[in-house]
């Protein structure tokens, strides 16, 4: 298949959104999660299951393995892991930022003491990964990998630099909006989440099949951090705030329903 142009991809994105809105208008429930099959993101073509997912009803199954989650603790992170600007001998190039917020469950309760892992491109839009051959400079002072454990209020905070946009080969002229990858654990394995956080006002949003794979507009908004001036530090860093809500049933949820 010939490589699509951006305007062809934009058209496919619009079509997928219209199909979703029509299904909601027809009575289908809104869904925050992206469909597994999303044609504008070409790599989904051979990798999405064609069979429907099989539902496991955990409400009848308190012993299910997926109602518990792996535990992480103080040995799994180091004191510098949350500060991606201090992991090398010098300071990385780029705009210093903090990203902070809370990790919550669907009931709005904090998820305490759980592992958050992040990774990102450097300020020029390049990952410290051998397969990333985008001709932008690597930064010897930036690896772009961080970890932390959430606090008692579910809170987390990272100091890093704002990542750059970068090209990819989904279609001709494809660019990813700047983003930070987040990996999260909850109290139940059902809540496991890997996602991406974006920066407000990015002009690439409308053209990006990965962000747009979330066809629900309100859900898509929840992937965008807010600039929070109160979290900016004078003459030091810009503050972004992003709260994360884990989907998926938990033991607490199910017990309360009885």
């Amino acid at each position, binding site marked *: 298949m010939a490589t699509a142009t951006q305007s062809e991809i934009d058209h496919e994105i619009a079509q997928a959104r219209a199909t979703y809105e029509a299904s909601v208008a027809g009575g289908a429930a809104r869904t925050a999660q992206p469909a597994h099959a999303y044609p504008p993101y070409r790599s989904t073509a051979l990798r999405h299951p064609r069979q429907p997912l099989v539902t496991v009803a955990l409400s009848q199954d308190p012993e299910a393995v997926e109602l518990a989650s792996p*535990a992480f603790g103080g040995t799994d992170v*180091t004191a510098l892991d949350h500060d991606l600007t201090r992991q090398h001998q010098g300071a990385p190039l780029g705009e210093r930022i903090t990203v902070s917020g809370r990790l919550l469950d669907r009931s709005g309760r904090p998820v305490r003491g759980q592992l958050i892992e992040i990774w990102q491109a450097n300020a020029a839009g390049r990952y410290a990964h051998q397969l990333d051959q985008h001709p932008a400079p690597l930064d010897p002072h930036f690896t772009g990998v961080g970890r932390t454990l959430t606090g008692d209020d579910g809170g987390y905070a990272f100091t890093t630099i704002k990542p750059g946009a970068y090209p990819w080969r989904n279609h001709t002229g494809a660019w990813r909006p700047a983003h930070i990858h987040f990996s999260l654990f909850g109290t139940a394995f059902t809540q496991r989440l890997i996602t991406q956080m974006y920066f407000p006002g990015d002009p690439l949003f409308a053209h990006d099949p990965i962000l747009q794979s979330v066809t629900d507009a309100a859900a898509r908004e929840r992937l965008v951090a807010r600039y929070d001036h109160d979290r900016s530090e004078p003459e030091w860093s810009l503050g972004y705030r992003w709260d994360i809500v884990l989907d998926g049933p938990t033991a607490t949820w199910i017990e309360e329903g009885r």
Partner: protein
Amino acid sequence: MTTPSARPTPAQTVGPFHGCALPFPGGGDAAPAGHPDTLVLHGHVRDGAGAPVPDALLEFWGPGPDGELPRATGSLRRDPMTGGFLGRDGIGFTGFARVATDADGHWAVRTLRPGARGGHAPHLAVCVFARGLTRHLFTRVYLPAADREPITDPLLAALPPERRATLVAVAEPRGSHRFDIRLQGAAETVFLEFA
């Protein structure tokens, strides 16, 4: 069930560059050193054309041989001096393994043989991440014979035989177990959602 009040954050693909962040030394070696109940599991991840998936990440979670779910920490065990990894301590069992597929789409983990829990046949929970998956896929790997009649496990019992077989590891002559994951197409692995 209570009505959830907070609106969930959507998933996004893990992308191609998780290799610098998520895999960790000893990630696949969850079994304590020399443990007699060690279970060696391995297999390939393949796409709808049968091609290997070289950039998948798999996570395994489940009970120890006694059927209890571990609360121990220390899967990653970092080195506070260098910022690197000390590796697992060889004693504790966290129940958690994480491995990336290699260039052939192959993976292997050494964990402990799971015990049965609450009417289930022994199994581990599996979570699959890859470029091209807009969100992760959950599945389970059952020990061999879980699909032999009479089938008691509620999930396996609800599946037709050919679908059921995709969730059951195959014992190999030298004691290892094979579990292939097919994302799409013929013999597509059964993937799960939880309600």
